C-alpha cells in the first residue's frame, strides 16, 4: 500500500465526496442546517456566554448528564429517521419496484441506524442518567474524577460529530453495525465509510471506558458513611455491574477497532482474507465486547425498574439480595456467551453446545429479576403512573423477546434463524423494551426532581400506548418473516415470496411509533407550558432513596450536610417509620471543581486526530494528538482546580435553597 505521506495536503478529501442523490443531499442539508440554526438562535438570543459558562465548561455531573441526554435525544431522532427510510424501502422495494434507496445507500442507512442507536442513543441516555442520579443516591457531592467525567462526555460528543459529518462529506460504512471483515477491509470497502465508523466509535468508546472507570470508583469509594454496599439503592447496583463490564469489555473494542484500522490504513494482516489474517478472530473479538455491551446497557435500566416498581408499589423491593446476586451472575455470565452470535462459524458441536447452555443459563438470573419485580408489585398499594405502564410494557415485550432468545440459544435452531429477521425482532424486543422503555420511565420518574414539575400523565399514557401498539406491529411480523427466510439488511425481494404484506404491517407499526415519539415531545412541551399547575415539590412520588430528601432544584453541591444513612431506603423510614433525620452533623467547607474548557479541548484534539486519519491527512493527525496531550499536561499543572465554599457560606446557601430532610 502506498502511504504517500505528504502527497496531498488534504489527503483523500475533495469536493467530489459531497453527496449527490436527493435523499443523501437532504440528509446533508439537515446536518448543515441544524447547527447553523442553533448558532443563529444562540446569537440572536445572546446566549453564547450563558451556554459557555453554565454548560459547555461545567464539571457538575448533573449538568453533564443533561448534555448527554440532549445529544442522545437528537441522535435518537436521526436513528428514527433512518428507520423510516429502511421500513419504507422494505415495504415497497418488491419485484419490479426498487424503492427509494440504492442498495449501497440502504446498507449505509442500516449500518448508521444500528451504530447510532447503540453508541449514541442507548449509551448516551444511560450515561446521562448515571451522571444525574448516581452521586445523589450514594450521598456524594461529586463523582470521583470530575474533570475526567467532562472529558468522557466531550469524547462522546466528538464521536457523535464525526459520525454525523459522514452524512455531509464522504459516505458511511455499508457493512452493518459491527463491520465484519473481509467486507470491511479496504479491498471490499475502499471508501472512507468504514473509517468513519471506526474512528467515531473509537473516540466515543474511549469516553465510555473512562466513564466506566470513573463511576466504578465513584460507587466503590464515594458512598456516604453508613451506606454499605448492601444498603445501596438497586439502581446503583445495576450501574456498578454495568460499569464493571465497561471496564472489562471496552478495552477489547478499543483494540479490535485499532487493528481493523491498521488493516485499512497501514496494510497489516489481522483480519484480511489473505496474508495470514484471520477474519473469524475479528468476529470473536468484537462479540467478546459486544455481548457484554448488551448487559452494559440493560443493567442500569434494570436498576431503574427496581426503583420505579418499589416506589410506585409503595413497598420495599422484593428480594433485594437475590437482585444483587442476579446482577453479578449476569455480569460473569455475559462474558462467556459471546459465541452464540456466530454458532454458524463452525466451531464444532462441543464449543457450540457449551455456549448454547451458558446462554440458556443467563436467562435464569434475568428471570429472577423479573419475578422479584412482579412480587414487589404483588399486594402493593399501586400508584399507577406512567412509569409503571412502561414497566409493564417492558415486562411483556422483554419476556416474549427473551423466550425468542432462549430459542436461538439452541445451536441447531440458530442455524435456521441466524441473521434472519427473527433475530432482528428478538434483539429489538430486548433493547428497545429493556433499555429505551427503562429510560423513558426514568425520565418521567426523575425529571420532577430536577425541574420541579411533573410531566402530563394523560399525554404520557397516549405515548405509551402508541409505542406499545406500534412496537408490537413493527416487530411481531419480523418473527414470522424470519421463519419464512427473510434475512436482515434486505434492500429488495421477489414478489412471489409473499412477504410484502408483513413488511407493510411493520411499516405501519413505525408510523405508530413516530406518533408515540411526537406525543412525547407534545407531552414535554405541554407540561412545560402548564408547569405552574403540576408543581412537584421536592418529593412528588413519596420516594425512598436519598435524592428525594434534597430540595428541588438540587443545589450544585448536592448535600449541604452529608446524609446519615443506617438502612436501605432511609428517606422512606424517616417519613413513615419515624426514622432519624437524614441531614445531620455540622456544616463543613465544600470543595467544588471550577469550570474549565480544557475537557472540550482534549476532545477537539481527538476529533481532529480521528478526522485526519479517516481522510489520510497525515500532517494534521499529529497536531490533533499533540493538542490533546499538551492540554492534559496543562491541566495537570493547575494547582487550584477547585474553589472552596466555607462552612458559613454553605449554611447560608442551604438556608436559601431550603434545607434537606
Amino acid at each position, binding site marked *: *500500500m502506498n502511504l504517500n505521506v505528504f502527497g496531498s495536503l488534504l489527503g483523500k478529501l475533495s469536493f467530489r465526496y459531497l453527496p449527490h442523490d436527493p435523499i443523501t443531499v437532504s440528509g446533508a442539508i439537515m446536518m448543515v442546517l441544524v447547527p447553523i440554526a442553533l448558532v443563529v438562535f444562540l446569537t440572536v438570543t445572546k446566549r453564547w456566554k450563558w451556554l459557555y459558562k453554565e454548560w459547555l465548561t461545567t464539571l457538575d455531573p448533573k449538568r453533564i448528564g443533561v448534555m448527554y441526554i440532549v445529544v442522545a435525544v437528537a441522535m435518537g431522532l436521526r436513528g428514527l429517521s433512518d428507520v423510516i427510510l429502511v421500513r419504507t424501502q422494505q415495504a415497497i422495494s418488491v419485484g419490479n419496484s426498487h424503492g427509494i434507496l440504492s442498495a449501497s445507500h440502504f446498507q449505509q442507512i442500516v449500518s448508521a441506524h444500528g451504530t447510532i442507536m447503540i453508541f449514541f442513543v442507548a449509551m448516551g441516555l444511560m450515561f446521562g442518567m448515571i451522571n444525574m442520579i448516581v452521586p445523589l443516591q450514594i450521598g456524594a457531592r461529586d463523582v*470521583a*474524577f470530575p474533570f475526567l467525567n467532562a472529558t468522557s462526555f466531550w469524547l462522546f460528543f466528538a464521536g457523535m460529530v464525526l459520525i454525523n459529518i459522514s452524512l455531509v462529506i464522504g459516505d458511511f460504512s455499508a457493512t452493518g453495525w459491527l463491520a465484519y471483515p473481509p467486507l470491511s477491509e479496504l479491498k471490499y470497502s475502499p471508501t472512507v465509510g468504514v473509517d468513519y465508523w471506526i474512528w467515531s466509535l473509537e473516540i466515543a468508546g474511549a469516553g465510555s*471506558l473512562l466513564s*466506566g*472507570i*470513573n463511576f*466504578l*470508583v465513584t460507587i*466503590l*469509594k*464515594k458512598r456516604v458513611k453508613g451506606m454499605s454496599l448492601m444498603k445501596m439503592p438497586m439502581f446503583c447496583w445495576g450501574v456498578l455491574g454495568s460499569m464493571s463490564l465497561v*471496564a*472489562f469489555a*471496552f*478495552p*477489547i473494542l*478499543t*483494540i*479490535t477497532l*485499532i*487493528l481493523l484500522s*491498521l488493516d485499512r490504513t*497501514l*496494510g*497489516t*494482516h*489481522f483480519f*484480511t482474507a*489473505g*496474508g*495470514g*489474517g*484471520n477474519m473469524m*478472530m475479528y468476529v470473536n*473479538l468484537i462479540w*467478546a465486547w459486544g455481548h457484554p455491551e448488551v448487559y452494559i446497557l440493560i443493567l442500569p435500566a434494570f436498576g431503574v425498574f427496581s426503583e420505579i416498581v418499589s416506589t410506585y408499589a409503595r413497598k420495599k423491593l422484593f428480594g433485594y439480595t437475590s437482585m444483587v446476586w442476579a446482577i453479578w451472575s449476569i455480569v460473569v455470565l455475559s462474558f462467556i456467551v459471546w459465541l452464540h452470535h456466530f454458532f454458524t462459524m463452525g466451531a464444532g458441536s462441543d464449543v457450540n453446545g457449551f455456549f448454547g447452555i451458558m446462554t440458556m443459563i443467563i436467562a435464569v438470573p434475568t428471570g429472577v429479576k423479573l419475578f422479584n419485580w412482579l412480587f414487589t408489585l404483588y399486594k402493593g398499594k399501586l400508584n399507577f403512573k406512567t412509569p409503571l405502564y412502561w414497566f409493564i410494557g417492558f415486562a411483556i415485550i422483554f419476556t416474549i423477546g427473551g423466550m425468542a432468545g432462549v430459542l436461538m440459544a439452541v445451536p441447531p435452531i440458530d442455524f435456521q434463524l441466524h441473521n434472519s429477521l427473527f433475530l432482528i425482532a428478538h434483539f429489538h424486543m430486548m433493547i428497545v423494551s429493556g433499555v429505551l422503555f427503562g429510560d423513558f420511565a426514568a425520565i418521567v420518574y426523575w425529571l420532577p426532581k430536577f425541574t420541579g414539575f411533573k410531566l402530563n400523565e394523560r399525554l404520557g399514557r397516549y405515548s405509551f400506548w402508541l409505542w406499545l401498539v406500534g412496537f408490537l406491529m413493527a416487530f411481531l411480523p419480523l418473527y414470522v418473516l424470519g421463519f419464512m427466510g427473510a434475512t436482515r439488511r434486505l434492500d429488495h425481494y421477489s414478489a412471489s415470496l409473499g412477504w410484502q404484506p408483513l413488511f407493510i404491517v411493520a411499516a405501519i407499526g413505525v408510523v405508530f411509533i413516530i406518533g408515540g415519539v411526537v406525543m412525547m415531545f407534545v407531552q414535554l412541551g405541554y407540561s412545560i407550558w402548564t408547569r405552574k399547575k403540576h408543581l412537584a415539590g421536592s418529593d412528588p412520588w413519596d420516594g425512598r432513596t436519598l435524592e428525594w430528601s434534597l430540595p428541588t432544584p438540587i443545589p450544585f453541591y448536592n448535600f449541604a450536610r452529608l446524609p446519615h444513612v443506617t438502612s436501605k431506603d432511609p428517606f422512606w423510614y424517616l417519613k413513615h417509620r419515624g426514622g432519624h433525620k437524614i441531614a445531620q452533623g455540622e456544616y463543613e467547607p465544600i470543595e467544588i471543581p471550577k469550570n474549565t474548557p480544557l475537557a472540550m479541548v482534549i476532545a477537539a484534539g481527538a476529533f481532529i486526530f480521528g478526522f485526519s486519519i479517516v481522510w489520510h491527512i497525515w500532517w494534521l493527525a499529529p497536531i490533533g494528538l499533540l493538542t490533546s*496531550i499538551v492540554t492534559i*499536561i496543562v491541566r*495537570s*499543572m493547575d494547582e487550584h482546580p477547585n474553589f472552596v465554599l466555607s462552612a458559613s457560606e454553605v449554611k447560608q446557601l442551604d438556608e436559601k435553597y431550603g434545607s434537606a430532610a
Partner: protein
Amino acid sequence: MSDLVPSAQVDVKEVNRLIERNDEDNTTIFGFWVYLMTDCVLFGSLFAVFTVLRNNTFGGPGGAVLFSLPYALIETLSLLTSSFTCGLAVLSAQRKSKKQTVFWFVVTFLLGATFLGLELTEFHKFIAGGNSWHRSGFLSSYFALVGTHGLHITIGLIWIAVMTGFILKRGINGLTMKRIRMLSLFWHFLDVVWIFIFTIVYLFGALHA
C-alpha cells in the same frame, strides 16, 4: 499517626481534614489501579491476537529466524533496571529528598529511552529486511503487541519528563507524592507486561521453529 502529639493538643478538625485528604488520594490511586486493569485487558486482547496469528507466517520468516535472544535480553535488562531505579526514586521521594528523586527519575528515563531505542532499532532491522507488518499475519500481530508496549513506554517517558520538571518546580508534597506513586505503578506495570512479551513472543518464538 504514631507521631501525633497527646490528645489535648490535637486539632480534631485538622486531623479529620488530613484523613479526608488521605481518602481522596486513595480514591485516585484506586482509580489508577482500575485503569491499569483495563489496560491489562487491552494487552490481554493483543496477546490473544498474537497467539492466534503466531503461526500465520504466510511464507515469511517466523520468530525463530527473526528474534535474537541476547538482544531481547539486553532490552529486558535495561527495562528491568529502569523499574528498579524507578522504585529508588519513590523511596527517595518518601524520604522527601528532592535531589535524589530527580536523579533516579533521570536514570529511569535514560534506561527507558535506551529500551525504546533498542526496540525501534529492532523494528527498523525487520522492516529494512523486508519483514514489516505487511509481510504476514504473524508480523502484524508482533508489531501491534510489541509496538503497543513501546507506545506505552513512550507515554511513560513523557510522563517521567513532565514529572521531573514538576518535582523541580514544586518540590515533594502531597500532590507530587500521589502522582509519583501512580507513575511508578504505571512503570512497573509496563515491566510486568514486558515480562510476558519476553516469554510469549521472544522465548517461545525463538524456541519453536
